[in-house]
């Protein structure tokens, strides 16, 4: 089963292996091109790298620089790593770190599992293709609304006289309304729910794209071997989707950690600072109090932690897998 499930398509495709594989049948071509291989790579990657050098490196360096400087009455003063030493002793920073961990882990798990579930349903053969396409269109709806309007929409559902509480109090005859955004644990769950609702369609589409790229022959072969639906999912679908799942979960982790808008719309970090994530904490310190240096230090530290986390995440995931190319 395992061998059958391991797809030829997902096998590694780095330049190195390409060279090795091709060497036998087209030795002369390869020999001629070897010095060009590296140049060619830079040719393809170059435009994007140049773009980043012009547009993104300045802000990145400036953030690093800002984190080492304190401004007093408009005069910048070099303070070395003082912001960082303050930061380590700042209980609210650690609080926000804890919150972002909860927020990110639960969001990522929900995004990908819901996205996967719906993608599987939509990838099945339906008795009516138009109906299926229509459903696909419907299910991406939450994604196309701006964060501001989705936040507002959910306020309308969550508030004490809103739709959900109408069902809870009015129809189910419960005594007190549910305080969705007002109880520390519940508020985080409510924000995660909105974030899941808002973002799952992206993951659904990407996974759907991945599912469609899986050659039907592999499934046929598995069926012939007598594999049931669960086995086919586990041994064919998942390994085939592996590179994509690794990529989107990484992206999801990174974007969720940096997310501010929904929290700003729904809870402003409250109640009792239970939904204050690192990014929201940066927003508050940097943009509301004008402590740009401190905010930049938090950002830089967050970047370093995130980078380490991501590298570990990818190393662990690529161990023993055939998706080594997705790692750094």
């Amino acid at each position, binding site marked *: 089963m395992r061998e059958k499930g391991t797809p030829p398509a997902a096998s590694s495709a780095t330049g190195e292996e390409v060279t090795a594989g091709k060497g036998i049948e087209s030795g002369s071509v390869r020999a001629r091109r070897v010095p060009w291989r590296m140049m060619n790579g830079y040719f393809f990657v170059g435009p994007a790298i140049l773009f980043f050098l012009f547009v993104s490196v300045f802000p990145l360096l400036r953030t690093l620089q800002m984190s080492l400087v304190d401004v007093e009455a408009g005069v910048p003063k070099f303070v070395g790593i003082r912001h960082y030493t303050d930061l380590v002793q700042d209980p609210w920073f650690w609080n926000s770190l804890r919150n972002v961990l909860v927020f990110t882990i639960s969001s990522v798990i929900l995004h990908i599992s819901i996205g996967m579930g719906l993608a599987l349903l939509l990838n099945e053969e339906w008795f009516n293709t138009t109906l299926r396409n229509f459903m696909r269109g419907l299910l991406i*709806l939450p994604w196309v609304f701006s964060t501001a309007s989705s936040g507002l929409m959910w306020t309308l559902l969550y508030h004490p006289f809103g739709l959900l509480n109408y069902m809870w109090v009015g129809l189910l005859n419960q005594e007190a309304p549910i305080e969705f955004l007002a109880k520390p644990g519940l508020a985080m769950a409510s924000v995660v729910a909105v974030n899941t609702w808002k973002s799952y369609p992206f993951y659904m589409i990407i996974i759907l794209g991945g599912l469609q790229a899986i050659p039907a022959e592999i499934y046929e072969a598995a069926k012939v071997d007598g594999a049931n639906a669960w086995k086919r999912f586990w041994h064919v679908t998942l390994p085939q989707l592996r590179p994509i799942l690794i990529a989107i979960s990484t992206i999801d982790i990174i974007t969720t950690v940096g997310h501010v808008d929904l929290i700003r719309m729904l809870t402003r970090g409250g109640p009792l600072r239970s939904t204050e994530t690192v990014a929201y904490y940066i927003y508050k310190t940097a943009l509301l109090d004008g402590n740009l240096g401190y905010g930049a230090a938090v950002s830089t530290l967050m970047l370093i932690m995130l980078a380490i986390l991501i590298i570990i995440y990818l190393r662990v995931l690529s161990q023993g897998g055939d998706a080594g190319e997705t790692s750094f």
Partner: protein
Amino acid sequence: MKRASDFRFRHGYLIHQIFIVSLTSLSAIVILTPVVWMINAAMRPIKEVLTYPPRLDPSQLTFEYMASLIENDLYRGYFVNSSIISLSTLAIVIVLGLLAAYGFSRFKMGGGRIMLLGIMALLMLPTVTLIVPYFRLAHLVGLYDTRLGLIVVNSAFILPICIWLLKGYMDAIPVDLEEAAMIDGCTRLQALQRIVVPLAVPGIVGTGTFAFIFAWNEFLLAVTLTDTPDAQPLTIGLAAFFGQFVRDWNSIMALSTITSIPLMIIFVLFQRWVVQGMTSGAVK
């Protein structure tokens, strides 16, 4: 236990269909309740939206709020700006993203990993931190309060994700095909264009949709980097309805409903491509 799930598939087509369709519909109902609620709010006087118990009586619905927005020149201008910004961002990130993803996927380069990590690192800084540097940069190069400025900055934010995603798709495409094409006399670029791109269409559509929607809904950068309606996208027009105390529910919901329609249409159109991409891939 494994047998139990198998049963569904061996039993007739009908049960399978009912299961799939009803499960999807159920999810759709749960997911779309807020949307129905929003459209409801876009079509009745604000006071009725806020009453308890909530009202859903369809006889009092009105298109007045949506109509007044469509007739508003200012909002038409925002719409044009949003379209230009989103389409141009899409164009830039797909072209640069395809090339870079192909490069990272197919070539072993010195410093390749570092470049890839560097690109991801750019993504790891939250937007909040970057708006101050971008404000300064935009003033320095004269792109402050222009659409071009927003296009460039949006692209910088989306491009890393696009490269990452497209690389994932390209890794899954067998190299034999393009190698064969190159032996037949194609250049690398031609091989990318004729072999890889058509096979990666589902990925390109997914990534492109992401890029477009990101640019379409981007707000924080737009509010920081623009001052006048000449350059501002729809999200700014939407934010104008959020006062310190009063939110203009009707306009907010009407505008959200109107602007999500083109996005829906675009997606449904592109969806055909996803399916076509799949079949053409299978033929190959």
